């Protein structure tokens, strides 16, 4: 199994009381809540944490893209991945992912990812996402064209990476006379492509197609939901006539390890609850604008609204498998049990979440890397 340290870079200095007076920290939380001096310290702390992961033996470090929110301070994962490419030597760097439909031109994504791949000597993993619903409100990109734009942007990027240029591209959303990307990516045929998702049959059908076989990552979902979607991915591969490799499956989950189960719950509680109940909170209209999902999916979410949108305690989060927390032995056993059920070849651990401060983040990373990760890496075939 590959173990990936995933970071969201939240604005951990957020005034939670003030933020709670707003419907969400997304889209319309006034940016006067952001203090650039505190931001300076946070960015450098977070980049240090990601760089430290190389020393601790993680296989991959990962950044992502979110806009106009205290949830994550990475409107451009290109900036953070670039900084990491120069400060690390061996570890792979995953952008999970670039929000293709939100970008004005996909060729810019092809170019930026290729640059990082070349600078890092082939250490890039390219993730492609559509951006979350809130970001369609932010940018005004029409969510009813989100899937179309995503697929067309993806096709253009992969062709730009793999076909000799120049060639012309005629799409519905993007038209280019000369596709001729400099630089070409370092890896052949191109960097691995991973597809993070909150769970969608349409995404699974597309990512698992024999022409693509992209790694599918289920993010921040109850363990039983993760299991359902990873099984759906394997079943879809089987229907396509091939067996999914474990490395095609991944699970992203927040994790906290401390000396004892009791200490872990006590230390993580306020920060995990801030993550779930403040940073992730948004109304359904913001999360799922029209066309972002199929109407059937939207109705399913509306039915499960209470479960999805209500506040949650740390105990409930652990019970649901939304969070893995405890002593090294507890966390190791939990992941080994989950792995036996799901056989994911990639585990993405979020070791900083919500307001978790730097000292606890480092302690968490160290205990996880030294006392949990070694046994997890041995699970399954080499990724």
């Amino acid at each position, binding site marked *: 199994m590959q173990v990936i340290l995933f970071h969201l870079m939240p604005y951990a200095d957020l005034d939670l009381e003030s933020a709670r007076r707003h419907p969400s920290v997304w*889209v319309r939380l006034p940016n006067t809540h952001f203090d650039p001096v505190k931001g300076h310290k946070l960015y450098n702390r977070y980049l240090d944490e990601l760089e430290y992961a190389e020393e601790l033996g993680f296989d991959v470090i990962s950044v992502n893209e979110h806009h106009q929110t205290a949830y994550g301070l990475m409107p451009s994962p290109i900036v953070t991945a670039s900084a990491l490419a120069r400060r690390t030597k061996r570890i792979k760097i995953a952008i999970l992912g670039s929000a293709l439909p939100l970008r004005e031109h996909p060729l810019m994504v092809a170019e930026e990812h290729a640059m990082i791949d070349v600078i890092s000597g082939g250490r890039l993993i390219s993730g492609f996402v559509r951006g979350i619903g809130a970001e*369609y*409100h932010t940018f*005004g*990109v*029409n*969510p*009813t*064209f989100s899937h179309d734009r995503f697929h067309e942007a993806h096709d253009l990027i992969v062709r730009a990476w793999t076909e000799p240029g120049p060639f012309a591209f005629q799409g519905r959303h993007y038209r280019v006379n000369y596709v001729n990307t400099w630089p070409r990516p370092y890896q052949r045929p191109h960097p691995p492509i991973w597809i993070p998702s909150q769970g969608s049959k349409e995404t699974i059908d597309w990512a698992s197609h024999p022409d693509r076989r992209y790694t599918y990552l289920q993010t921040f979902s109850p363990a039983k939901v993760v299991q359902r979607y990873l099984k759906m991915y394997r079943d879809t591969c089987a229907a396509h006539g091939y067996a999914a490799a474990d490395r095609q499956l991944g699970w992203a989950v927040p994790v906290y390890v401390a000396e004892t189960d009791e200490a872990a719950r006590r230390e993580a509680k306020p920060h995990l609850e801030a993550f779930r109940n403040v940073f992730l909170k948004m*109304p*359904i*209209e*913001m999360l799922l*604008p*029209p*066309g972002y999902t199929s*109407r059937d999916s*939207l*109705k399913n979410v509306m039915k499960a609204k209470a479960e999805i949108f209500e506040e949650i305690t740390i105990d409930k989060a652990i019970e649901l498998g939304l969070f893995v927390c405890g002593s090294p032995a507890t966390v190791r056993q939990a992941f080994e049990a989950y792995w036996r059920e799901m056989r994911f070849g990639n585990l993405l651990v979020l070791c900083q979440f919500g307001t978790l401060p730097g000292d606890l983040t480092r302690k968490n990373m160290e205990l996880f890397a030294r006392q949990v990760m070694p046994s997890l890496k041995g699970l399954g075939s080499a990724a």
Partner: protein
Amino acid sequence: MAFTQHYLEIDGCRINLRRGGAGAPLLYLHGASGAPVIMPFMEKLAERFDVLVPEHPGFGLSDEPDWLENIHDLAYFYLDFLRRLDLRNVLVVGSSIGGWLALEMAVRDAARIRSLVLVGPAGISAPGVQPADIFLWSPEELVRNLFHDQKLADARLAEPVTPEQVDIALKNRHTAARLAWEPRLHDPFLHKWLHRVTVPVKIVWGENDKILPVAYAQAFKALLPHAELEIIPACGHLPQAEKADRFCDIVLRFASRG
């Protein structure tokens, strides 16, 4: 006045059309919430007009054609609709997005259009004014903000909702987003060609419109100098629903002169 209901296929798209009354043809073009039922103002207008109430492609019981990508597609569809039914001298009444649609039709081809009644129409931008962000509102907020008289909103919210109505509401919302998400509720090029609208125009606006503030009425007046403007006090975004009698009087007086 009894309305009939039937399906009609135009441009490969089957639409649901309700029609009632007798007289000169009046085409009602609904807004983002659709036209799921015959409303009292339609009944009243049907005493004097041949009232046609189609559900737009992508709304209600009508098909969702692949070709529907923007308001221009819808305008060409309705020009085909007028030709197919051989309607002439049509009074087109459009509410909100439907008013925008009526203008998009009229700048292209007004040969079959006698005059326009625009009810809180979308379609243009105006400096310093912003339409409400209808896509961020919950269903309840949307209903509350549609009406000035909250008793009407209470009544609307108290109505039971069937699963079929939930499906239709999601479908309408999807098509409204496709047409009007960005640019939000307008066509940035339309204003350049509004001088092509030479038929008589009546603009009706609720003074307390929370979706498209009444300041838009002045912006339209500047672009359509020959248009008559009537602002209805104590009224929200849907004067035809909130002040039905007053609204029908305005339409009848305007039509009798036009």
